[in-house]
Each structure stands twice: as structure tokens, then as C-alpha cells.
């Protein structure tokens, strides 16, 4: 039987690197994917995902007993990505206006695939649109729809009430739906659960 996160955290706090390595292996996929999606599908996600774990290691002493390690880790990941996005924004804000406009152009209709595009193409488009959402909206969609966290878990990560998660998710999905609607109508229905 594998050790619980709590036990691994306890061992890691005592300087057991092997235990921390186990935690990294346990969460590397999820943290990398989260960072990757929130940062806009860029290659430097590796660096920031690794930074998440390194910061976690640095701060193990601040981890509160009884808290969920995964939630704590996601919180650190979001702090890392927010810092990076702020840095990027500051850099972008110094660019000439024309470049900025190019970046925030809505998707060109001509780029849209033909109706009946494959699921993979639709997913790629959805991810591209996800990248165009503001950070707050992108975070909830990534945590809910890509990472499958419950509203309560997301609330724990973001440090807000579940009701806020619900409303942010509603707005974010509505924005995505509105942008992708022409492509979604022929998608399989009945996801309702």
C-alpha cells in the first residue's frame, strides 16, 4: 500500500528527499499540465512547474497539518503562474500598441475549421480560446475541466467561497461557449451527468 501524502510530507520535512521525490512523481503530471495550460501552452511551463515543487519543498515547514497536500500544491502553482503572467504583462505593456492589438485579436473566422472538424481540432481551438480568457477565468476552467477538482477543492486552492467558484466558472464557460458556439452545435450531446 502506498504511503499517504501526509506521511510523505512528514518524511520530507525531516529531510527525506526520497519521500519528496515520491510526492513529485505523484503530482508532476497534474502540476505540469496546470501550469502549462494557465501559462498558455508554452514550453517554459516545465521551468515553472518545477519551480512549484521547489517552492513547495522550501516551504514544507509552513504546510498546515490536516490540509490537503494537493490543494496546497495547486495554490503554489497558481502563485507561480500569476507571478509569471504579471511579469509577462508588464513586459507586453511596454510593447508598441500595434503588437498588443495583434495579440488580443479575436480568432479569425477564417481560421475556424470546417464544420465537423475532428475532436482533436476542436479541443485545440478550445484550448486556444481558453488561453484568451483572463487569468481568473482561465484558472477555474483549468482546475475544474482539465484537472477535475470539485468546487470545494477549487475554493480551497483559490481561497474563495465555493459560490465564487461557481459564478466564475459560469462566466468563463459562457465566454468560451459564445466564442466556440458555431463549432459546438454538432458536437455530441448528453454530457449532462
Amino acid at each position, binding site marked *: 500500500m502506498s504511503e499517504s501524502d501526509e506521511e510523505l510530507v512528514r518524511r520530507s520535512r525531516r529531510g527525506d528527499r526520497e519521500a519528496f521525490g515520491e510526492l*513529485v512523481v505523484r503530482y*508532476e503530471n497534474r502540476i505540469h499540465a496546470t501550469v502549462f495550460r494557465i501559462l498558455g*501552452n508554452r514550453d517554459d511551463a516545465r521551468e515553472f512547474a518545477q519551480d512549484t*515543487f521547489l517552492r513547495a519543498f522550501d516551504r514544507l515547514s509552513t504546510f498546515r497539518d490536516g490540509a490537503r497536500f494537493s490543494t496546497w500544491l495547486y495554490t503554489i502553482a497558481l502563485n507561480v503562474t500569476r507571478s509569471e503572467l504579471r511579469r509577462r504583462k508588464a513586459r507586453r505593456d511596454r510593447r508598441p500598441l500595434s503588437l498588443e492589438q495583434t495579440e488580443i485579436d479575436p480568432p479569425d473566422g477564417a481560421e475556424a475549421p470546417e464544420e465537423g472538424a475532428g*475532436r482533436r481540432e476542436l479541443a485545440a481551438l478550445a484550448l486556444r480560446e481558453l488561453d484568451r480568457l483572463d487569468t481568473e477565468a482561465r484558472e477555474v476552467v483549468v482546475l475544474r475541466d482539465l484537472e477535475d477538482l470539485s468546487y470545494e477543492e477549487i475554493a480551497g486552492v483559490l481561497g474563495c467561497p465555493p459560490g465564487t467558484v461557481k459564478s466564475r466558472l459560469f462566466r468563463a464557460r459562457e465566454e468560451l461557449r459564445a466564442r466556440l458556439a458555431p463549432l459546438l452545435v454538432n458536437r455530441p450531446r448528453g454530457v*449532462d451527468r
Partner: protein
Amino acid sequence: MNCTEARERLSPLLDGELGAAEAAEVRAHVAECEGCREHHAELAALVSTLRGAPSPALPEGFAAEVLAALPSRRRGGLLRLVPLAGLAAAALLVAVVLSHRSRSPDARSPVTETARGPAPGASEGDGPPRDIPFASAPAASVPDGAPAESVVGDSRAGLTAGAPAPVAEEARASRSSGLRYIVAGGQPDAAAGMILAEIDHRRRRGGPPPPSDAGTDDTACVERVVAGAYGEPRSILLCLTPDEVRYVTEMARRLAALIALQESLEANCREVVQATYPWVSQKK
């Protein structure tokens, strides 16, 4: 339930976050309303698409790289030493105050004797000299134009029973309150800078050579920008040997205990002074 209300609930419905009664109500509306049915289908397709999106491939060797980076990252992580260093600085401050008080004949106390004990790990002659620059990051931490001499050296003078630094009482008081402010105000950086400057100086004066095991598990690397001799910013990066880490830690603990015991030690001091008076008078 109207369309607006129903559509607001479609998102939590898809997540299974609605109560049974509310979910049934939404479903009933969707079944009857074509517009909401389409809306629901689009939203469901969107969620399904996102959930089915492939995960990005994890870079090869990801975990190994994290683990390999841990030792070097512990440089930052071991800034956990900083609070200890802060404590040490606070304790040093107390030592200074107590040693200054001790110069007054009627205030000589056991506290001073305690403070004058040899510093842990500090051998004879390796104490910090007086001329190390005041290692304070924020200039405002030493208000009122306190003298530029070494606070660390002066503080340690209290510990090693060295001669008191020739500073004016007023300046000493303001510097002390400045140091108190550094620690009490949660500015451990300045305090940590002092500790680092001390160790740095000890090395320059022929102390142990820089550790060759920099970056390994047994080495704590800390970096601080401190004020140089002329107030210019100077970066100190030290990889502390395990002995030095122990020194700082033990020093901090022992000195912090002085702070914690200050009240009772002073009470003890008064008691002893009073208790010895008749004996002194009898001698006369």
C-alpha cells in the same frame, strides 16, 4: 424558472453541483425550451471537449530535475536561518543593552555573567573585529545617525566581556531602538545580514576556508545585500558549513533565551544586589 435562471444553472448542473430538486427543475425547463436546450448542448459539448483535451506531455526527466535542483534551491530554502539570525540579532541587542547596563556599578548582575559566557562555537581570537561594516539592509533601521562602527562587533563585545565601545549613550540608545525595530518590525534581512557579515569577516581574517561542498545537501547558502563600509550596497553570498549553521542556530537559541528570560533575570539581578548589600556594608 425562466431562461436566464435556467442558463445560470446549466454550468453547475453539468458539474453535478446542484441539489436534486433544483437539477430536476432545470432539466424540466430545458426539456421544454428549445433555446435553452441548444444552450445546454453547446455547454455540454464545450465541457466534454475540454475534459477530453489531451494533457501536455510531461518533459522527460521532470522529477529527476526537480530532485537534482533541491540542494541548490535549499540555498533559498535555508533562508529559514534568517528568523534564527533575526533572533540572534535581537539577543545580541539584549546582550549589548545588558552589558552597557553592567558598566553601572549598581547594576552589575548575573545576567551580565550569563551574557559574558563564551559564544558557542567561537574559539578564542576568532571573534569578529570591530571594523566590520554595519550590515543593515534598510538604512532606516539605524535611525538618528548612529555611529558607523560595527554593531555586530559591539554586540559581541557584550558577550565576550570585551571593552565597551566608546559610543555616546544617546547614540547607543538610538541604535538599540533601531535594532529593536529591525527585529520587532519583522525585518530579519538586516539582522541576517549582520550575522553573515560577521561570518564573512571571520573568514577573511583567516577563519576556515570557504566550503568546498557548496551546493550539496550539507551546505546552506544564503545571500544578502548589506551596507558596505561606506554605505554602498554589497552582496554577500556565503555557503555556510554545517558547523557554521550549527553555530548560528545555537547562538540564536541561546541568545533568544536571554530575551525570553530578560524580565526574570533582571528581577534576579535586583534581588542579588539587594541581598549582597548588608554583606558589603559588614565588610566595611
